[in-house]
């Protein structure tokens, strides 16, 4: 299936060519060519990704191996099911929006050719890890994504905060990856293979043992660093605070979601409830993550840091959904991944527009700014209402699904804690709306103007999506349901890969 490699191939080729194109355009004194080129690349990759939908519908799991003689247990290969496809579509879409937004937002920075190159390669890495069929491919693409995201966090290297946050992120994330690598070596020692399906097949009937628990814990630690589950969340507020806002949107919207994707694969494909009972572990993890994230967000003075802490809270909801071990819970979790990517991405992009105009991130300096920037403030309000879970916005749908699934699974305490947390989070979202949009502007803020057009287009598109999927969630719900069923039915996946 050659179609499978096109999205990654297009993104990587565009990413590698971006610096050359930008330099050439600079000679001809054309502006923003790098950004337009990146946008074009994302668009083509999105089309290439959408073309996969028909073959996927026919076959269920698509395979790609290098050469016809190479068979899955030997070679590194790609295997795409609905789960990976769902995530890849999300990654490319957010990359597209982020690159469009960067056209104006990043225009004052230098080194833009590297910026777009890194952005394209980061999305290529994410798509690759969503498509990977074995741990070798997964690890390589995971590291491509991680490396480029370190560089993007530290992109404004003339500022001390970017460097500090970047190093913190690198140290924690690289440690997590190394721990994952160590547990992979143990998995290889037990099963003799690194392909997801073959590992799953050989662990299918395995009785619980301390060795499996150890491997499982190591894998979970490694992936939780990326997910920013609570004992490992320290890098996230810093990195989100100092990165350019378009990158914060990417980090919060999709990079943390790669950890969720890896966790879903680990929990539901490689291990299962009978081998390792993860319900209690993940329940505790999710409660910690939700509570700490929301409490931290209440204390923040910096708008971006506040949104970053609320990302930790939302990761808690998704982990709650994963802990249930049911299809309904998984559907809610995957739908929340999608919705959170859109609404948190929108929130970060709006904040970016405000920072672009005013140059400040402090809430006290920004009082009343919304009155001077009507479009930004309306879209920001939509994203915040959506994040707090108001009906008719998309955040409500997925939160509702998660909590009803939790009730179905008889996790009453978890549901109550989740709902309390959701209530707590409304406090800071509404405070933000009240301070930024309802107060009267004064001083410097009274003179600001609306952001430029290329910043506003992505905001309007994403706000429209927030409302659209809030009032008409059916298509994306069906899609998420399909992905959840694909993640849950591991026997079909194993058969599809091993029969080749």
């Amino acid at each position, binding site marked *: 299936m050659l179609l499978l490699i096109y999205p990654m191939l297009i993104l990587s080729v565009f990413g590698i060519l971006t610096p050359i194109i930008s330099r050439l355009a600079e000679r001809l004194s054309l502006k923003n060519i790098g950004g337009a080129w990146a946008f074009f690349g994302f668009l083509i990759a999105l089309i290439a990704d959408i073309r996969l939908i028909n073959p996927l519908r026919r076959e269920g799991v698509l395979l790609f191996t290098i050469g016809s003689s190479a068979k899955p247990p*030997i070679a590194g290969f790609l295997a795409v099911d609905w789960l990976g496809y769902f995530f890849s579509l999300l990654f490319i879409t957010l990359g597209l929006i982020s690159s469009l937004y960067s056209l104006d937002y990043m225009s004052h920075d230098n080194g833009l050719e590297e910026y777009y190159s890194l952005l394209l390669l980061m999305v290529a890495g994410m798509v690759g890890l969503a498509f990977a069929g074995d741990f070798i491919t997964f690890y390589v693409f995971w590291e491509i994504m991680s490396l480029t995201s370190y560089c993007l966090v*530290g992109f404004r290297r003339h500022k001390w905060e970017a460097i500090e946050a970047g*190093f913190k992120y690198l140290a924690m994330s*690289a440690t997590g990856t190394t721990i994952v690598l160590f547990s992979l070596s143990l998995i290889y020692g037990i099963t003799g293979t690194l392909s997801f399906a073959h590992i799953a097949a050989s662990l299918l009937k395995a009785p619980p043992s301390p060795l499996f628990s150890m491997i499982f814990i190591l894998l979970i630690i490694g992936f939780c660093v990326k997910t920013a589950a609570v004992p490992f969340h320290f890098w996230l507020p810093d990195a989100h605070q100092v990165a350019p806002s378009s990158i914060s949107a990417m980090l919060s919207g999709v990079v943390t979601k790669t950890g969720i994707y890896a966790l879903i694969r680990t929990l539901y494909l490689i291990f299962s409830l009978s081998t390792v009972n993860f319900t209690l572990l993940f329940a505790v993890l999710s409660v910690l993550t939700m509570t700490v994230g929301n409490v931290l967000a209440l204390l923040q003075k910096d708008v971006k840091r506040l949104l970053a802490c609320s990302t930790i809270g939302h990761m808690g909801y998704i982990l709650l959904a994963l802990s249930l071990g049911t299809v309904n819970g998984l559907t809610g979790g995957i739908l929340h991944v999608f919705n959170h990517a859109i609404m948190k991405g929108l929130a970060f992009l709006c904040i970016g527009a405000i920072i672009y105009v005013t140059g400040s991130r402090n809430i006290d300096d920004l009082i009343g700014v919304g009155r001077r920037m009507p479009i930004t403030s309306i879209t920001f309000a939509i994203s915040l209402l959506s994040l707090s879970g108001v009906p008719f916005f998309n955040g409500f749908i997925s939160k509702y699904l998660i909590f009803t699934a939790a009730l179905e699974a008889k996790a009453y305490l978890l549901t109550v804690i989740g709902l309390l947390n959701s209530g707590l989070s409304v406090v800071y979202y509404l405070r933000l709306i009240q301070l930024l949009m309802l107060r009267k502007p004064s001083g410097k803020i009274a003179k600001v103007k609306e952001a430029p057009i290329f910043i506003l287009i992505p905001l309007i598109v994403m706000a429209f999506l927030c409302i659209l999927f809030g009032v008409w969630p059916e298509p994306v719900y069906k899609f998420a349901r399909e992905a959840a069923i694909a993640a849950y039915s591991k026997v079909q996946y194993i058969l599809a890969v091993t029969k080749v």
Partner: protein
Amino acid sequence: MGFELYVFIASSAVLLAIGLYGLMVKRNMVKLVMSLEIMLSAATLNFVNFASHRIVGMIDPLAHVFAIIAISVEACVIGVALTFIINVYRHYKTLDIRKVKRLRW
């Protein structure tokens, strides 16, 4: 499965422990990166060990390939880490990780 298998597993566990210890205790950022490298070599050693000793008389190329890939990929990470360290030195005039904590909460 021979005696060597367990010797190498034990030494890779020791390497992992040394790396984690270094990450927790050391103050110098370069030493942190070195600890990361030690942890990586624990994983790589494990791969090579399992590939050679898992089944007697057979060497699995898959794990060797993965070991080489992991080493080269990790070299890139170390490169990025060192650029960060150089930039940290430019801004803070120190490599002490405990001084590099102006971002709080």
